C-alpha cells in the first residue's frame, strides 16, 4: 500500500516542511507597516485606517487624511482640522497617490554609467560615491538646491552644510513664482521680504490680475474655499470677481467681469486702477493717507496711453474701480512680476484691505531666498528642485528625485527619496500653523529619506555638530518642541499631534507701515508696451500637456478646452481665421508643432500655451511665427461648445423668471425646452412615485460656487477605480469619467461667458435607463439610488442610449492598471471588466459603510455622515449631499433655494440632483 503513491509519513514530512518554509519568508518584513498612530491590533482587514500628514505637491502645504486599507493608501482627502485645506484637496493633491504608486518610480539608487544611462547600484556604492565626492570637494564646491523646506528637512540641510563648512548662501531655495514676486513686492513697500496671506472669505469683491487662485496660485484650496464662501448668496451679499488677463482660465471663467488686457498689460491696468482710486473725482471714501503721495506721483500719468498699451477701453477701469471700492473689503491678487505685485499690494493698502483680506505677520519666514553665491559647484545636490542652465559643467549632480524628472535627467547619481506619504516631516505653513507629516505606509521600494542620506554622509565623513539620531527622531523632537512653543500641545501629547496632523495657534495679523520712499519710483516706471503676437503661458490645475504628470491629471481633460493627453496652442477665433486654421489643426508655432484649440475666451493677438507644456521653453523669447501644417487629431473630449440654446445653464435670474412664468400659466407641456414642466398632478405619469421608506439620497450642486477645478473628478477616479483609457479613447468619446465638468462657452463678440456644469448620474426617481434593461442589471433601490449590478450586466448599452443625461459609461475593453498602480485600487469598489456598463453610484460604498457603522452602534445616520468623494474634496463646498427623508438635513434646505433647477425637468425623470443656478447678470 505504502509502496505506491504518497504514504502517511511522507505526507506529514511534506506538510511540516511546507509549514516551515512558509514561516520563513525570504523577503525581509517591512520595518513598520503601521506607524505609531494606531496600535497594530487595530488593523482589522476590511476596515480602513486613517493617517494625517501634509501634502507636498505644491508649496501650500495642505493637510491630508490618508485612508489606508491593509497597509496600502487607497485615497487621499483633506484634513478638516487643518486650516489650509479645511478638509478639501485639489486635483493635484488627489493625484499624489499616483506619484506614490507611479510605475516609473525609482526602485533604488541609480548611477549614470559609461553609456550615459542610469543603472541601478546598491546604496553602499551610491553613498560611497557621494561621500568620496564631498570629501574631495572644497567646501566652496558643495551646493544644494532645494524646494522650500520650512521644517526639519530644511534644518538638517542647513546643519549638514554648516558642519561641512559650506557657506549658507550655497544652499539655494527655489521659491514658487508667485511667492517670489510677492516677497519682492512686500520688500519694496514694507521693507520686509514677507509673504502676505490672503483671506478671500472676508472679501466682498475680488480682482484677480492673472492670479488663478482656484487652480494653482499660492494656495488654491484655501483661496478657492475662501472665495466660494461668498458665492451662492443673494446679489447684494455675493462676492464679485473681476478677472484681468488675456485669457479666461477656469478661475477667470467664474468671474463677473473680464478685462481682457494684453499679456503684460496687467501693470498698466494696475496703474490705471490706482489712478482711478486716488482720483478725487471718483470720491472714494476711507482711503489710506498714503493716497496723497500716490496722487502726486501719478500726476504725470497718461491714462489714455496706458489703456492703449494694455489694449483695453478706459471705462472698464472705472467699472473695476467702482466694484472694488463700493464692495469692501476687497482683495486684489496678482503676481506676474514683482512690479505688478507691488502695485496691487499698494492698491490693497490704499483701499484698507491690508490687515483684513491681506494680512502680514503670518509668514513663517523660515526660508530665506538669498541670491545664490556665484561660482562653479563640484558637487550639486538637487532636493526636489530643477537643474538650471548654469549647472552644465558640474562634475557630480546628485538628485533625490523619486521619479524621472528634469533633475534626474541631468544627474549623475540619483538617491531616491521616500514619497511624502512614506516619510516623516513637518511644515510650518504659516506662522503658528505647524503641519505634521508622518509616513502613512511602509516604503514601497529601497528608497531613503534625503535627510537621512545627508546625516549618514555627515557621519561617514566624521562631521561634528550633527544632531544625534535619524531624520525621524529629529523631526519628532522638533515637532513636539515647536508645538509646545506655540502652546498648541494638548494633553494627548505627541500621539494627539499626529492624530490631528496639525498644531495650530495662528498668529494674529500685524500692522505694517508703508515705506513710502519706493512708491514714486514704482509708479513712475512706465511698463514696456507688449508685443504682438504675444506668447502667453497659462497655468492649469491639471496636466494634460505634461508627459510626466500622473495619468489622472492627463486623463481628466482641461476644463475649458476639453483636451487631454496633449499640449496645445490656443488662438482666438479671429487669429485662427487669419492664418486659415481651424480647430484641431496642427500648427507650426516657432519651431514647435502644436495642435490648435480655438478659444473665444482668448484675446486677439495672443498665442496661449499651457504653462506645463514641454514645448514652452523652446518658444520663449523667440519670434512667434504661426503656420497651419495639416489637419491634426487633437485628443479632445467630443461635444458641443455650448448648450445649443437648450438652456441647460440658466442664470439665477432666468430660473426665477422661469418659475414665475410657470406659476402664471396653467400647467401643461409648453413647447420648447427649459420652459416645460411636468404636469403637476401626475408628475410620474400612470405609476405612483417610488417610495423611499428610510432614505432618499440626493445632491445639490451650487454652480455659483463651482470653479471648474476638477478636483472632484480626480477624486472620483481615485475612489471608484475608474480606468484611465488614454488619448485615443478620449478623442473617440470613451473617457470613462463618472463625473465630468461640462463647460459651455458662449461668445457674442467680446462678451464671452464660460460656465461649468458638473454632470453625473442624476439618480432619477423614474430613471429611463431602468425599464429598458432586459436583465434588471440596473434598478431603483429603496434608498433612491439607481443601482448598477455589474455581475448581471450583459452589455446591451440600451441604458446608456436611453439616459437623457449621458451619465453612463461602458467598459469598451478590460481596464488596465499598470503595476503598482493597482495597489491604489479601492477594495470597497468592484473593478469592472470589459462589456459592462457603469456610472456614478453616489459612492454607494460610503453610504453602506456609514449605514453599517450606524447600525452596529444602534443609532440613526447623522446628516453629513455620508459624503461622496466629489463632495468631500470640493474646496468650494459646492456639493451638498444628504437624505431627503431626513427633514432636518441640510440638503432639504439647500434644495429650497430659489436658484434651484433640475436638468431636463420636462422629461419627468425626477432627478435627485438639484443645480443651483449661477448668479450675476444674465
Amino acid at each position: 500500500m505504502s509502496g505506491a503513491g504518497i504514504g502517511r509519513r511522507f505526507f506529514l514530512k511534506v506538510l511540516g516542511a511546507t509549514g516551515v518554509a512558509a514561516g520563513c519568508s525570504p523577503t525581509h518584513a517591512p520595518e513598520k507597516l503601521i506607524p505609531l498612530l494606531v496600535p497594530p491590533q487595530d488593523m482589522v482587514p476590511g476596515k480602513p485606517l486613517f493617517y494625517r500628514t501634509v501634502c507636498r505637491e505644491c508649496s501650500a502645504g495642505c493637510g491630508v487624511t490618508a485612508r489606508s486599507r491593509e497597509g496600502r493608501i487607497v485615497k487621499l482627502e483633506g484634513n478638516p482640522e487643518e486650516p489650509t485645506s479645511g478638509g478639501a484637496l485639489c486635483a493635484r493633491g488627489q493625484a499624489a497617490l499616483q506619484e506614490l504608486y507611479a510605475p516609473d518610480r525609482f526602485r533604488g539608487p541609480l548611477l549614470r554609467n559609461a553609456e550615459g544611462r542610469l543603472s541601478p547600484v546598491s546604496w553602499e556604492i551610491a553613498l560611497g560615491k557621494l561621500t568620496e565626492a564631498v570629501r574631495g570637494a572644497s567646501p566652496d564646491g558643495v551646493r544644494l538646491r532645494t524646494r522650500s523646506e520650512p521644517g526639519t528637512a530644511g534644518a538638517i540641510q542647513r546643519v549638514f552644510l554648516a558642519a561641512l563648512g559650506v557657506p549658507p548662501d550655497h544652499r539655494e531655495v527655489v521659491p514658487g513664482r508667485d511667492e517670489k514676486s510677492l516677497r519682492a513686492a512686500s520688500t519694496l513697500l514694507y521693507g520686509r521680504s514677507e509673504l502676505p496671506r490672503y483671506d478671500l472669505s472676508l472679501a466682498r469683491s475680488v480682482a484677480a490680475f492673472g492670479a488663478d487662485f482656484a487652480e494653482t496660485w499660492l494656495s488654491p484650496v484655501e483661496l478657492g474655499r475662501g472665495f466660494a464662501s461668498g458665492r451662492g448668496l443673494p446679489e447684494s451679499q455675493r462676492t464679485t470677481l473681476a478677472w484681468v488677463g488675456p485669457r479666461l482660465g477656469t478661475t477667470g471663467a467664474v468671474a463677473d467681469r473680464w478685462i481682457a488686457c494684453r499679456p503684460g498689460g496687467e501693470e498698466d491696468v494696475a496703474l490705471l486702477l490706482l489712478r482711478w482710486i486716488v482720483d478725487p473725482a471718483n470720491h472714494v471714501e476711507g482711503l489710506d493717507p498714503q493716497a496723497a503721495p500716490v496722487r502726486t506721483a501719478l500726476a504725470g500719468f497718461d491714462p489714455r496711453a496706458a489703456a492703449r498699451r494694455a489694449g483695453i477701453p478706459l471705462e472698464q477701469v472705472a467699472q473695476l474701480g467702482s466694484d472694488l471700492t463700493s464692495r469692501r473689503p476687497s482683495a486684489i491678487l496678482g503676481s506676474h512680476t514683482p512690479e505688478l505685485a507691488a502695485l496691487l499690494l499698494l492698491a490693497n493698502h490704499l483701499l484698507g484691505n491690508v490687515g483684513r483680506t491681506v494680512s502680514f505677520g503670518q509668514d513663517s519666514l523660515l526660508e530665506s531666498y538669498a541670491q545664490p553665491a556665484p561660482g562653479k559647484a563640484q558637487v550639486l545636490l538637487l532636493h526636489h528642485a530643477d537643474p538650471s542652465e548654469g549647472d552644465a559643467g558640474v562634475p557630480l549632480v546628485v538628485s533625490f528625485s523619486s521619479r524621472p524628472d528634469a533633475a534626474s535627467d541631468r544627474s549623475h547619481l540619483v538617491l531616491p527619496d521616500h514619497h511624502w506619504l512614506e516619510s516623516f516631516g513637518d511644515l510650518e505653513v504659516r506662522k503658528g500653523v505647524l503641519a505634521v507629516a508622518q509616513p502613512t505606509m511602509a516604503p514601497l521600494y529601497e528608497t531613503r529619506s534625503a535627510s537621512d542620506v545627508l546625516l549618514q554622509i555627515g557621519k561617514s565623513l566624521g562631521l561634528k555638530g550633527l544632531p544625534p539620531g535619524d531624520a525621524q527622531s529629529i523631526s519628532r523632537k522638533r515637532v513636539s518642541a515647536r508645538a509646545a512653543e506655540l502652546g498648541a500641545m494638548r494633553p494627548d501629547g505627541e500621539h494627539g499631534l499626529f492624530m490631528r496632523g496639525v498644531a495650530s495657534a495662528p498668529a494674529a495679523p500685524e500692522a505694517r507701515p508703508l515705506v513710502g520712499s519706493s512708491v514714486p519710483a514704482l509708479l513712475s516706471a512706465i511698463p514696456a508696451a507688449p508685443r504682438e503676437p504675444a506668447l502667453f503661458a497659462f497655468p492649469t490645475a491639471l496636466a494634460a500637456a505634461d508627459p510626466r504628470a500622473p495619468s489622472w491629471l492627463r486623463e481628466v481633460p482641461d476644463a475649458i478646452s476639453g483636451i487631454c493627453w496633449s499640449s496645445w496652442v490656443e488662438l482666438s477665433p479671429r487669429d485662427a481665421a487669419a492664418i486659415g486654421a481651424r480647430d484641431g489643426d496642427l500648427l507650426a508655432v516657432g519651431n514647435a508643432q502644436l495642435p490648435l484649440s480655438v478659444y473665444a475666451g482668448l484675446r486677439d493677438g495672443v498665442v496661449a500655451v499651457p504653462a506645463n507644456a514641454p514645448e514652452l521653453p523652446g518658444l520663449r523669447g523667440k519670434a512667434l511665427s504661426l503656420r497651419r501644417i495639416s489637419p491634426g487629431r487633437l485628443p479632445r473630449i467630443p461635444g458641443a461648445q455650448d448648450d445649443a440654446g437648450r438652456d441647460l445653464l440658466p442664470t439665477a435670474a432666468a430660473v426665477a423668471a422661469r418659475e414665475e412664468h410657470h406659476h402664471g400659466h396653467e400647467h401643461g407641456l409648453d413647447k420648447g425646452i427649459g420652459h416645460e414642466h411636468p404636469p403637476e398632478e401626475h408628475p410620474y405619469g400612470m405609476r405612483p412615485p417610488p417610495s423611499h421608506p428610510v432614505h432618499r439620497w440626493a445632491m445639490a450642486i451650487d454652480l455659483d460656487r463651482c470653479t471648474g477645478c476638477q478636483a472632484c473628478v480626480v477624486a472620483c477616479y481615485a475612489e471608484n477605480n475608474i480606468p484611465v483609457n488614454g488619448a485615443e479613447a478620449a478623442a473617440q468619446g470613451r473617457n470613462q469619467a463618472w463625473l465630468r465638468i461640462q463647460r459651455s462657452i458662449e461668445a457674442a463678440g467680446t462678451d464671452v461667458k464660460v460656465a461649468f456644469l458638473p454632470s453625473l448620474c442624476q439618480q432619477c426617481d423614474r430613471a429611463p435607463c431602468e425599464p429598458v434593461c432586459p436583465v434588471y442589471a440596473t434598478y431603483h433601490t429603496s434608498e433612491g439610488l439607481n443601482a448598477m449590478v455589474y455581475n448581471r450586466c450583459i452589455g446591451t448599452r440600451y441604458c446608456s442610449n436611453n439616459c437623457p443625461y449621458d451619465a453612463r459609461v461602458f467598459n469598451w475593453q478590460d481596464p488596465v492598471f499598470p503595476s503598482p498602480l493597482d495597489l491604489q485600487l479601492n477594495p470597497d469598489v468592484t473593478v469592472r471588466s470589459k462589456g459592462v456598463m457603469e456610472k456614478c453610484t453616489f459612492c454607494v460604498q460610503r453610504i453602506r459603510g456609514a449605514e453599517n457603522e450606524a447600525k452596529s452602534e444602534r443609532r440613526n445616520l447623522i446628516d453629513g455622515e455620508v459624503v461622496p468623494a466629489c463632495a468631500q474634496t470640493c474646496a468650494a463646498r459646492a456639493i451638498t449631499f444628504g437624505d431627503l427623508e431626513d427633514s432636518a438635513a441640510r440638503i432639504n434646505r439647500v434644495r429650497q433655494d430659489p436658484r434651484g433647477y433640475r436638468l431636463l425637468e420636462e422629461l419627468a425623470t425626477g432627478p435627485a440632483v438639484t443645480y443651483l443656478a449661477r448668479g450675476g447678470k444674465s
Partner: protein
Amino acid sequence: MSTVSAQLALIEERVHAAQGKGGRLYWVLLACAIGATGIGAYSWSRIIRFGMGETGLNRPVAWGVLITDFVFWVGIAHSGTLISAILFLFRARFRTAVYRVAEAMTVFAVATAGLFPIIHLGRPWFGYWILPYPNERSLWINFRSPLVWDAFAISTYLVVSSLFLLSGLVPDAAALRDATSGWRRRLYAMVSLGWRGTDEEWRHHSRAYLFFAAFATPLVISVHSVVSWDFAVSVVPGWHSTLFPPYFVAGAILSGVAMVLTLLVPLRRALGIEELVTRRHLDLLSRLVLLTSLIVTFSYGMEFVLALWRGPRVELETLLFRAFGSYAPLFWTMVFCNCAAPLLLFFPRIRNTPIALFFLGIVVNVGMWLERFNIVVTSLSHNRIPFDWGTYRPSLVELGITLGSFGWFFTWFLVFLKLLPAVSIAELKEEVGHPHEGVDATEVAHAA
C-alpha cells in the same frame, strides 16, 4: 391531357435540373459566401477577445452598425412571410412561383438577424440571460424591456417561419425522395415526414398550411412593430415616436420585397426556371415595392410634420441634424434610394426589365440599410445634452461582421438551392391541373 402531362414533366425536369451538380459559378459563389462568413466570425472573435472597443462605438453613440444590421435583416425577413402567407390567404395565385424562395429567405434572414442581438452584447457569453429560464438564483428578466420583447418576437418568428417553410416542403420532399437515392433520399425522407400523398394527407396538409399562414400573418406586423419599439419606447429624440411601428413594417416589406427581386432575377436565369417565375411575377412584386416605397416616403415626411406640429424642439433639431448635419450625405442617399429611385417603377417598361429590377432591388436595400443607420446613429449622436454630442464611424470589425452576415445568409441560401426545391413542385402542378383557377399556369404552358 397530353399537354398537361407534358407540362407536369417539364416542371419536374426543371426542378430536378436545378437540384443537379452545381456549375463553376455556384461553387465560386458558395466559396465567397463561406469566406465572408469566416471574415465575420474572425471579426466577432476580436470583439469577444478584446471587447466592444473594437467597434467604433462610444458615448453617446452606443449602438451603431450592428443594430443597423439587426433591423435590416429582420426587415429582409419580412417579405417572405408576407408573400407566402398573406398572399396565400388572399388567394393571390402569382405567389406560387416565388413563395418558396421568399420563405427560405425569411428563415435565413431571421437566423442572421437573430445573431446580432448576441453579437452586439458587451458580454455575449451571457446572452442567454435575456431568456426567462428557471435558475437557482431566482433571477428573472425584465418584461418591461423592449429587448426582452425582441427576444420573444425574433425567436417566435424564427420558429413559425421555419415550420411554415417545412410544412410547405413536405409534398415536394416526398416527390424528390421518390426520385433520388443515397443521402439525398434519406434527407428528403426525413423532411417529407413519411408523406405518401393520400387524400387525407393532402387534406391535413392544406389545413395545416392554412393554419400556419393565418398564424404567420399577424407576426409580419407584430415582429417588426416590436423591433421598432426598441427605439420608440425610449426617450431619445428621433426614436421616441408613435409613427415607428407602421413605418418600420412598411420599410421591412419594402426591403424584403426588394431583396426577393434581387435574388429572383439571377436565380430564375441560373436555375433555368424563367418559365416558372415569369415577368408577370416580377411585375407584381415591383408594384409592391412601389407601394411600400410610397408609404415609407410618407413616413419620412410625417416625422418632420409631427416634430413641427407639436413635438418638443429637440425632436425637430434631431431631424434637422439628420438631414443637414454630419450624416447628411447618408440621409440624402437614403432619400434617393428609398423615395426617388422606386418611382421609376411607375413605368411598365422598367417593371418588365428584370435587370433593372435587380439593380433597383439593390438600390432599395442600400437605402433601407442607410435608413436604419440614420435612425440609430444620428439620434444618439445628437442626444439631449449638447456637451456630449459626438459622432460615430464604424470600424473595420463592424464592417467585417456586416460582410459576414451576408456571407452567412448566402451560404445558407446557396446550400438550400441545391438541397431543396426552390419552387414549389406541388403547387405548380396544381396550377397546371386547374387552369381555370388562375392565369399563372397558362403562362407556364405558353412559356413551355
